[in-house]
């Protein structure tokens, strides 16, 4: 019968502002990594902190607030992407047999540096073409260095689902890079 008249929060507004100050950059970068759109990332940033404020009383381990905020940001980003239907995901195809490709040695340091730059661009470009759920796990694993079991916990997924998404993400990335002839030309690769 006893009802509180307003929702309780685990932190005051001023405490929450400190959290905002601490994690502002992280959340914005996460949102931008997911969308590559600064305006959309801005919306996601705001939504993430608003959601966090309403749910922070449920956060048991305050030491993991960064990971928690990142997962809210990635989930919010996926929702925004779905709502706006802005994402042009590339359909997944079967992985091409790696044995199809020949090995080419590159020895020049200069060439390696140039190559590194293009490889960087190619990888990033192809990551953007991955499904948002794949980008999400890549971000959490490779940027925030979360363990797969922790990613599963935060995203409320099974461990196997996270492993599978990471595996598929890398496979698809490799597949897309291999299929892109412009990369092959830039890097002097050849297809047998």
């Amino acid at each position: 019968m006893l009802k509180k008249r307003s929702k309780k929060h685990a932190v005051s507004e001023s405490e929450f502002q400190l959290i905002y100050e601490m994690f502002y950059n992280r959340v914005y970068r996460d949102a931008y990594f997911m969308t590559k759109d600064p305006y959309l990332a801005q919306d996601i940033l705001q939504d993430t902190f608003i959601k966090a404020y309403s749910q922070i009383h449920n956060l048991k381990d305050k030491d993991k607030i960064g990971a928690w905020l990142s997962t809210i940001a990635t989930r919010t980003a996926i929702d925004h992407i779905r709502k706006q239907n802005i994402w042009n995901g590339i359909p997944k195809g079967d992985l091409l047999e790696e044995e199809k490709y020949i090995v080419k040695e590159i020895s020049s340091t200069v060439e390696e540096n140039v190559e590194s730059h293009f490889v960087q661009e190619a990888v990033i470009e192809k990551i953007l073409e991955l499904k948002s759920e794949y980008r999400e796990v890549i971000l959490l694993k490779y940027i925030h260095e979360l363990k797969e079991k922790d990613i599963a916990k935060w995203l409320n997924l099974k461990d196997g689902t996270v492993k599978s998404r990471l595996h598929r993400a890398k496979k698809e990335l490799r597949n897309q890079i291999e299929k892109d002839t412009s990369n092959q030309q830039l890097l002097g690769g050849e297809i047998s």
Partner: protein
Amino acid sequence: MTYQQNKEILDDYHLKQHITKDYDNCPEPPVSKDKTWEMIRKEIQKDAKPKKKLLPTRLMSIAAVAVITIIGGLFLQVNDSQAFGWITKYFITSNDEITQIGSSIKEPGDSGGLPSPDQLEEIAVVTKTDDMELAHAQQETNFHILVPKDVPDGYTLGFVTVYYENDMPSTKVILNYRNNEKTFTIEQIYVEHEVASSMVVDNDDTKVQNVELFTGQGTFISFKDNTTMLMWSQMNSQLTLDSSLSLEKAKMIANSME
């Protein structure tokens, strides 16, 4: 691209390197950090505003609750009373389906009538609440907390909920009483200048009646689920007893508030 290159690019170490470079090379947000915080702050304050939400079983019977507004329309009954220099007004307007119950408290000397909508402010933007003992609550607040001298047998004061606005104690507290089985609450809103409130109840599910209290007029509402609400004003406070008590017991509590 060669197989070997491809493999190197996509091993964990290289993938992390590539992604980290991209992650760090993020453009500035279109809106400044401070402005973004202001927008977030406004939203979380909206979220923290007290919604005078009644028990779920009452939700269907109460169409709208605790809106600070002017009640237009036909007043079937207007009752004024004066206690310690403060003027209170109750009015009830009814048609076949709903009953509106309004009240106002204002300082003596003000011109007659209810305040205009432009002058009205919401009671509180509550940012947090804290439960504490009465003595502590009294120290926290800047007004006298009214406490009933008489309560039905078995009931004791459990704790006092103090509401805060921007981390400062607000003018609202709730006394929480309980016995082995049931609870009741007394909400007190201290009125510094003037305040008006209204609620609308569905006549199908509720019975509204005026009651005479030592301090003046009050309104007693009986809901279909056997819960009741007694609203009245005393000194410069609006009080609401939310319970499953009978009218007689509710009146006993209200008449003993000191």
